[in-house]
């Protein structure tokens, strides 16, 4: 089919959280034009925050996403604490890391088991997966249940927690409640190791991309809530320097801003970037499990993001159990201090990659300006490049198979549009 002209388009997506479309024109095996666009109207969260109290930012921004509210809560909280000069003690920071593990588990397991795994098995959705591989779905539901439980115990409920605030937590959970989770967390790790072994048997499409990886990096730990921003090209900057190195810009075909370096270079955030930049921060036995499954540091195959996600699930269970064993309730569960005018920055590792917050506040704590750069925005240009690479690499597939492969490539990112299962409409124009 290399001499044919084919137009591949992802038409308007129904049932998606973020409407989007992908169009690519292929001539003689080469892509001559492509557009990945998100045309959902802007939701104006940043404008909505102006004039409101600094205390509202975590709860308001958490409504941006029902899958990763903790990422928004923590990023906003850290930025406000930075602006106000409040220092969060280690026990509160550890409790934040613990609840964040719950969000990683919830989000990653949903994606690996129920949204992405069917792609690798030629199945339409999790319903078909449950019919053909019930054990894998049961495994995922059990692991996710533990993630939900972790969120409920610390955050008050499993989605959109209500116990978090600038400075920490309204009420620290009891040691008994947290430590009662340990057996389930240990079981969750075992379940997740078994799932990784199952995923390792998938047939991963052979594709390598030239990525600029960007992630947080911590002095000792695998990054979740803290760290400096690093990249595979040697960047190593503090969180506040994010706007001096990265920007969002408008493209004519999309309502969503696209992230890039100030030099205009696209970059990749998320599990594959985190793994590649922080593999040495994983416990040795977990890294060995990753390598045994076919995921080694330096991996540039976007389809193996599934493995990176699952490795992070194993780590999240291990880390959560460690934190739970060491837990004693901080009293009080939050810090606070005097208000002051200022500017603050916050970045954490959301399941899909770094999520940046910047706020300017007045002397009374009112928000004057807000900037939020979510991971899917940062990845948007790279998603388009991955699709181009996928189409060129697999252009000899028939239309249905190529359509499938493109959908699979988009779901590598677990972007908001990934929830639309099998949404591609493939139009072929033959020369």
């Amino acid at each position: 089919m290399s001499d044919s002209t084919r137009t591949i388009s992802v038409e308007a997506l129904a049932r998606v959280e973020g409407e989007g479309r992908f169009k690519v024109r292929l001539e003689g095996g080469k892509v001559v034009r492509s557009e990945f666009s998100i045309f959902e109207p802007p939701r104006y969260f940043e404008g909505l925050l102006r004039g409101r109290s600094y205390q509202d930012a975590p709860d308001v921004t958490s409504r941006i996403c029902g899958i990763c509210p903790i990422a928004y809560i923590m990023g906003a909280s850290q930025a406000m604490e930075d602006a106000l000069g409040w220092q969060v003690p280690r026990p509160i920071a550890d409790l934040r890391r613990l609840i964040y593990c719950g969000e990683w588990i919830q989000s990653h397991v949903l994606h690996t088991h129920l949204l992405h795994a069917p792609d690798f098995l030629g199945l339409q959705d999790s319903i078909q997966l449950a019919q053909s591989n019930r054990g894998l779905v049961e495994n995922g539901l059990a692991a996710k249940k533990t993630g939900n439980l972790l969120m409920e115990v610390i955050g008050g409920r499993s989605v959109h927690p209500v116990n978090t605030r600038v400075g920490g937590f309204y009420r620290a959970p009891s040691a008994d409640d947290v430590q009662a989770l340990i057996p389930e967390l240990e079981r969750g790790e075992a379940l997740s190791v078994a799932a990784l072994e199952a995923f390792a048997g998938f047939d991963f499409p052979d594709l390598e991309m030239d990525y600029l990886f960007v992630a947080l990096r911590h002095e000792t730990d695998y990054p979740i809530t803290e760290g400096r921003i690093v990249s595979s090209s040697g960047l190593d900057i503090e969180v506040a320097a994010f706007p001096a190195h990265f920007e969002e810009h408008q493209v004519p075909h999309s309502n969503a801003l696209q992230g890039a370096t100030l030099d205009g270079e696209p970059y990749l955030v998320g599990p594959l970037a985190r793994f590649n930049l922080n593999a040495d921060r994983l416990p040795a036995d977990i890294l060995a499990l990753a390598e045994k499954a076919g995921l080694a540091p330096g991996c540039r195959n976007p389809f193996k993001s599934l493995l990176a996600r699952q490795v992070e699930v194993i780590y999240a269970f291990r880390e959560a159990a460690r934190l739970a064993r060491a837990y004693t309730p901080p009293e009080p569960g939050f810090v606070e201090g005097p208000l002051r005018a200022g500017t603050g920055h916050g970045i954490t590792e959301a399941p899909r990659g770094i999520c940046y917050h910047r706020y300017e506040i007045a002397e009374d704590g009112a928000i004057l300006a807000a900037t939020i750069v979510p991971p899917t925005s940062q990845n948007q240009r790279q998603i388009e490049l991955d699709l181009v690479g996928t189409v060129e690499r697999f252009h000899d597939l028939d239309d249905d198979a190529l359509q499938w492969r493109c959908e699979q490539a988009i779901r590598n990112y677990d972007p908001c549009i990934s929830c639309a299962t099998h949404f591609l409409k493939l139009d072929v124009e033959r020369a």
Partner: protein
Amino acid sequence: MSSAPDSGIVIGVGQAERQDDGVGPYVARALKQRGLPAVAHEGEGSGLLELWQFRPACIVIDALSGAGPPGRLRVFADLEDPAFRRAAFVHSTHRLGLPEAVALGRTLGRLPDRLAVIGITGAAFGFGSALSPPVATAAEGLIETLAGAKDAFDEDLLAGLGGA
């Protein structure tokens, strides 16, 4: 978990801070105050499976959009009916929603013996916790009917509330 797993349960699905999308949680909280086994839930599918599995009966109350005049009740007792999936329940599709949870529960044998979904057509889904007047009226009527019934899970009672 708000009740023993051998009892039926009412699950009110929705976002309490998004006006009429919060009608499910509103009804659930009111029923709980009246002594019925009821819980508010955000609607995440795997969580719904956990709540309703192994129970003899379950009623899910959720907001509908664009399905007739605001405040209209629609009861779905046959969840294999395509009308159920077409009903435009207000839910996030970034995760497993109610229709997917029902289908997955059916495949895995995790549905209650009897499961009915009551949809209430909303008028407003913006920011705020207040229900619109027609939805509030419908919610109060539903609360009185279920709380006053000898058996809130009775199929004939539910069928009388509004067909799909």
